[in-house]
């Protein structure tokens, strides 16, 4: 029974991945604009001068018509992918996309990964506590506060934090992912500098994100605590903590858990605003830039990575559900 369920899920994910690869190829090409005008704009911005006519013409000659023979492009793309080759970035020619991704990915995984887990843990825990005794003083403070928090735009929080802690108080650096005067490697000084640079971006993400988890968890807990099985557990004389976590929270957590799996998949996409405000060397900015400059190979590389990560995270969530929720096992 369980195996049939797994096979069905696996089949679904494979089909989804195939569709994603096709869309991933097609979508950037359906966007308005083309690499050559993006390149012209970029050249003007960097040099501060108008691009000479001859330069314009040769840019057009090289990048002119990305809409030519689409079928051929797709075949080439598939052939490349089958070799695990993500192609060569256009704006960074001749640097391979894989190199760029490899440079950015660890930073994103470190920053966004830890903060996503932390925000989820804090938010969910507080949510259970707040929902367990809805209307208590804790709930009366936490719930409105987090509602307020989740309505404050993130970039504002980030800029304010940068201004207060980075500039006025001078506790944290103003930009970057590490102290660039230190040599990179596994030294204590370097690790400390990475933490020092990461703490403020991380804090702002956690600060802005935990409220969402808290609200979701609280609301689910509020409805769950009224269920008969919770009442029964209490009637059995189990310790309140055991009832709260083993009976109420475990059931209330299912929707949050799905969200968490999605968020984990999304980690690979990076945190664009964080990376911009704090000049953090992650993957979000890479994607943003590739979109802006119509760098198709880079876009596809990053999109593919994100899609696969989300699919994988969902697959893991599906599998975890089987363990977490007996009803799925029974139905499967």
């Amino acid at each position, binding site marked *: 029974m369980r195996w049939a369920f797994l096979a069905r899920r696996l089949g679904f994910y494979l089909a989804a991945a195939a569709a994603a690869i096709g869309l991933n190829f097609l979508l950037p090409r359906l966007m308005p604009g083309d690499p050559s005008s*993006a390149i012209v704009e970029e050249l003007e911005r960097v*040099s*501060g001068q108008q691009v000479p*006519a001859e330069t314009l013409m040769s840019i057009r000659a090289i990048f002119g018509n990305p809409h030519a023979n689409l079928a051929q492009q797709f075949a080439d793309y598939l052939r490349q992918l089958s070799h695990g080759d993500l192609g060569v970035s256009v704006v960074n020619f*001749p640097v391979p996309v894989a190199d760029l991704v490899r440079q950015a990915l660890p930073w994103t995984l470190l920053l966004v990964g830890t903060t996503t887990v932390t925000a989820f843990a804090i938010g969910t825990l507080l949510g259970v506590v707040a929902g367990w005794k809805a209307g208590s003083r804790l709930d009366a403070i936490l719930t409105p506060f987090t509602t307020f928090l989740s309505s404050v735009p993130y970039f504002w929080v980030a800029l304010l934090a940068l201004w207060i802690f980075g500039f006025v108080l001078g506790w944290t650096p103003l930009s970057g992912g590490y102290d660039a005067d230190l040599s990179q490697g596994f030294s204590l000084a370097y690790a400390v500098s990475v*933490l020092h640079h990461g703490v403020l971006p991380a804090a702002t993400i956690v600060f802005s994100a935990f409220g969402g988890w808290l609200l979701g968890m609280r609301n689910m807990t509020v409805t769950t605590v009224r269920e008969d099985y919770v009442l029964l557990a209490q009637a059995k004389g189990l310790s309140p903590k055991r009832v709260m976590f083993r009976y109420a929270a475990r059931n209330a957590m299912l929707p949050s858990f799905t969200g968490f799996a999605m968020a984990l998949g999304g980690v690979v996409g990076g945190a664009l605003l964080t990376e*911009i405000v*704090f000049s953090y060397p992650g993957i979000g*900015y890479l994607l943003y830039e590739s979109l802006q400059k119509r760098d198709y190979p880079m876009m596809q590389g990053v999109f593919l990575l994100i899609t696969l990560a989300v699919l994988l995270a969902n697959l893991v969530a599906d599998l975890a559900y089987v363990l977490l929720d007996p009803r799925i096992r029974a139905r499967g």
Partner: protein
Amino acid sequence: MRSRWRVLLVVGAVLAAGCSGPAAKPAGSGGGAAEASVVYGKTDGGTTFVRNYNVMGPATDKAPNMELVYEPLMRVDYGEGGVVKPWLAESWTFSGQGKQLTIKLRKDVTWSDGQQFTADDVVYSLGLPIEKPDFSIAGVTYKSVQKVDDSTVKVVFAEPSYATLNQFANILLPMVPKHIWSTQNLNTWTNPDPIGTGPFTLEEFKPQQITLRARTDYWGGKLPMTTYKIIPTSADALKAQLLKGDIDWASASWPNGEKEYVAKDPDKHLYQLYSNGGAMSVLFNTAKAPFDDVHVRRALALTIDRTAVVTTLQRPGTEAGPTGLSDQLFADWLDPAYKGKVQKVDAAAAKAELAAGGWTIDNGALVKDGKRYQPSILFNSDWGWGNYADILINTWKQNLGLQVKGAGQPSAGYYDKQNLGQFDLAAASTGGSGVYGVYRFLSSSFKVPIGKSATLNQGRWSDPTTDSILASMERTDNVDQLKTLGRELQKIVVDKVPFSPIYNNFYFVDINATRWTGWPTPDDFDHIPFVGMGPDTILTMLKLQRRGS
């Protein structure tokens, strides 16, 4: 559960230790007297840099400031109306009615690996765009390059080319060492350890900091600094870093910079604007009604509130003159009649123009011979230009009763529509180096039908007089003659209004002169301290002095 809490506590403690750990030290403080760094904060290069010094390739995101390593043959002196000046080339002469150019090279230039810079390198470098047209985006007009002797090369053109000499000053056409480049596959080589003629060599490349070291044997003289550091930053963080003194130099606009930055320490906090010779203009689509009629163009040009626009931009006094040539750069080239002149809103004159053309305004639309036109203005919403488009739209409505629609587009769509000629009015930047460079786009040789993508001349201007003046300019290097021709072109632009300039465009320069002095000022400069301009950037650095030394 308990053990997990313990882990969290430990992590928290480490994070806290990190906070109080290393005192934030300014990146440019260097290390004692021997080391003297200039720190440049780059706001437009993303959050990380990519080690790619393949300067000839079509990439736009090459390693930043590669022009401090690889130099061009000539430089454009923007301080003198865009005149071309020597750099690696010592001198040059045209012959054969401007179809041949003999370039004499400096003999005292060496590559940073010690080898002599010779005519072989120049022939190789200039030859690359011809041999690999699908690789170099420099865009060159010459047909061939030959070596004459070790320090002389001859370049051959198909057409008289006095006016396109500035292609040798293009930072996309730098000189590279033949002895290294000719052995590489340029389609895969990222040139991680660049060897150039420039004043700097690459010392260390990290994705978040590039350190360049000053050469001690640079042909242009002795540099006052030992290293130049480039760090990525954001526009917001940059302001704090400049105020704190972490960064010496940046190029970013700071709308309220006078008050937020300069006023806090006028001696050391410098925020400078240098005209880049261009302007933001209203471009008319002259290939279709109603803007194929000069009276309509004049009427709209007469009712642009330029002062309101620059006030909103927080750049008072930067309204453009009617020629689109800035007073700061083109003082010697401007027709005295247009000097210091800014067109104020003149509703009466505008209405007279419409009447002279037989136009009336009815219900917000332009009407003539029973046909109604309701124009729209195309602008780039990624530049945040919506507010300024609204100012224009309001003034036209108030003064003429004409209702122009705003048609904002993100960058991609904006360029598409502009190139295809699918617009009535467009807010576009105009400009270039020298009078010829600024007006060249008006040549009908660039004109293509609406619906076909134009490289230049998006307004589809077609005027025999303009063409013949431009052609004459291409056939001479006599400065007096060029000035006369330039004034004739100015008159065409002012009278026939193929486009109408709104405000001058600038290079924005932010400097914290706490560690370094000797910066040029907009009142007194022969080079612009804008990073990314190659020779101008180098000249700026050669003249800096450590404060107090």
